[in-house]
């Protein structure tokens, strides 16, 4: 009973973290699902958001201004990746990795050291883990605003052309859409959202750390995948999908808490998360290959294998017989 209570008591924290990472996952959704780009900048830009917010806040800047600055910093990071990708023709994944590495140095320069604390006692933060119920309310507010803004944006002429860019480059060019600019724009929006989640994460945890973005993309993808699974049968509405992605983040952290509570080594969680993400990413391929073989094809393949084995055996026997014959 006590055990169960302790699990329940950890839930508000899990939900808060889940919402923060849910916002991050919305950013990942914009590049990964809408733009069809796997953008690894996010590992760096989430940390950039945290660093900018932490440094400004500890230097007496209003926390809302600090969050805004964090978003702008994230957008800049996305812009750099976008330029690498579209102007210099570097494959999107590599462009993201290059920016990510650059950001590690930049983040260290911003922070000045590996870790900077934001004490909720001395600074007027928006959310803190000291007051989880308030934090959850505020985070739900953030999530709602982000989803509404994106929902409206993707319903505009520009937003629609961005979706077309992610869907069909040929058609986009033929319809006069500047796909390079759109890709940059998508990366800017995505990394702005990711940096926002970084800024919130720093406040929630009470510190910004140079290593806090490591593997963020996997957590983000996991949330996207869970979210897609959650609402793939409910609705195709874009807003609902984004809400589902946020819910995916929450589910991820609740599962995380349960794993910790069950006594599993939380250090292994990233490994499990990575494996689960790998599995889900593999499903479309597996479906189109191994699982699309017809029963007849499978049966025939089995027969061919058996025949091959028999032929091999026979050849061996024949060889042996020949040897024996030779001796005799």
């Amino acid at each position, binding site marked *: 009973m006590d055990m169960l209570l302790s699990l329940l008591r950890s839930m508000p924290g899990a939900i808060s973290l889940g919402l923060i990472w849910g916002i991050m996952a919305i950013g990942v959704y914009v590049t990964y699902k809408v733009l069809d780009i796997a953008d690894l900048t996010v590992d760096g830009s989430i940390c950039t958001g945290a660093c900018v917010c932490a440094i400004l806040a500890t230097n007496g800047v209003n926390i809302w201004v600090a969050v805004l600055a964090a978003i702008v910093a994230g957008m800049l990071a996305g812009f750099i990746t976008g330029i690498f990708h579209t102007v210099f023709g570097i494959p999107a994944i590599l462009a993201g990795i290059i920016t990510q590495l650059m950001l590690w140095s930049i983040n260290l320069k911003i922070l000045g050291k590996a870790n900077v604390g934001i004490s909720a006692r001395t600074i007027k933060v928006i959310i803190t883990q000291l007051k989880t119920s308030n934090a959850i309310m505020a985070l739900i507010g953030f999530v709602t605003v982000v989803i509404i803004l994106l929902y409206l944006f993707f319903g*505009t002429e520009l937003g629609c052309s961005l*979706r077309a860019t992610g869907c069909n480059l040929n058609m986009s*060019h033929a319809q006069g859409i500047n796909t390079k600019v759109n890709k940059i724009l998508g990366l800017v929006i995505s990394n702005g959202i990711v940096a926002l989640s970084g800024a919130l994460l720093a406040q929630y945890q009470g510190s910004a750390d140079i290593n806090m973005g490591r593997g963020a993309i996997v957590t983000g993808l996991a949330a996207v995948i869970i979210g897609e699974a959650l609402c793939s049968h409910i609705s195709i509405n874009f807003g609902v999908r984004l809400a589902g992605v946020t819910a995916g983040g929450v589910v991820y952290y609740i599962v995380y808490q349960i794993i910790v509570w069950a006594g599993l080594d939380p250090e292994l969680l990233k490994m499990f998360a990575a494996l689960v993400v790998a599995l889900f990413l593999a499903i479309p391929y597996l479906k189109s290959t191994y699982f699309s073989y017809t029963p007849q094809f499978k049966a025939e393949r089995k027969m061919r294998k058996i025949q091959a084995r028999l032929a091999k055996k026979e050849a061996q026997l024949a060889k042996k017989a020949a040897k024996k014959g030779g001796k005799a």
Partner: protein
Amino acid sequence: MLELKNITKTFNAGTVNEKIALNNINLTLEEGDFVTIIGGNGAGKSTMLNAIAGVWLPDHGSIVVDGVDITDMPEYKRAKFLGRVFQDPRMGTATDMWLEENLALAKRRGKSRTLRWAITRKERDEYRDMLKELDLGLEHRLTTKMGLFSGGQRQAVTLLMATMQKPKLLLLDEHTAALDPKTAAKVLELTDKFIKEGNLTALMVTHNMKDAIAHGNRLIMMNQGRIILDIKGEEKKNLTVEMLLEQFAKASGTEFMNDRALLG
């Protein structure tokens, strides 16, 4: 209207795979010309259309559309002047987006895309009327994803999208080749209708000699990156497949070897 001057394009220059796909092409179209293009596999038909569309830049030569030099204009910018339908029905539309969203994207071809709503209610009624004219029952399926439509339906929609904003030049690259004969005939009929009603200038590549003869007011034949025949006016009206084959043999010095063209 359209002027191609000395367009040359070599793929993989300087390698063993070097291929002169376009060899000094010169072509001038008059306003309202509907030109059908035939030629064997690898003759350079698609390459010529792609050069006009700006998929890549020619090695040399110039392209002028209606007095505007578009030779080194990026593909998305010259889209303002061009309507395009591709051979592959998947290429012309955004399959993950709704029918009406695709139409709205096409409606804004050549215009700047702002933060205004992608589709207005008034437009939606317009689209419904346009779709009704296709006579494929699409007017009731505005919010169906493009990917769920058949190849013929998609080509008809792509055709509509290509002509919705009147293009200075319509480029059709074997846009009926992936369709069954009945659907192909329907799409071809729509093509004729759109070109006539919009008084469009068009280039249509086809593998089917009969279609090439039956449509348009001018026919050109390509071989090994060159235009080897250019038939217009009365001569085009009285053309038959036999005459075309004979002319081809004379112009190229070889037999026309293409079953698809003969039987199609």
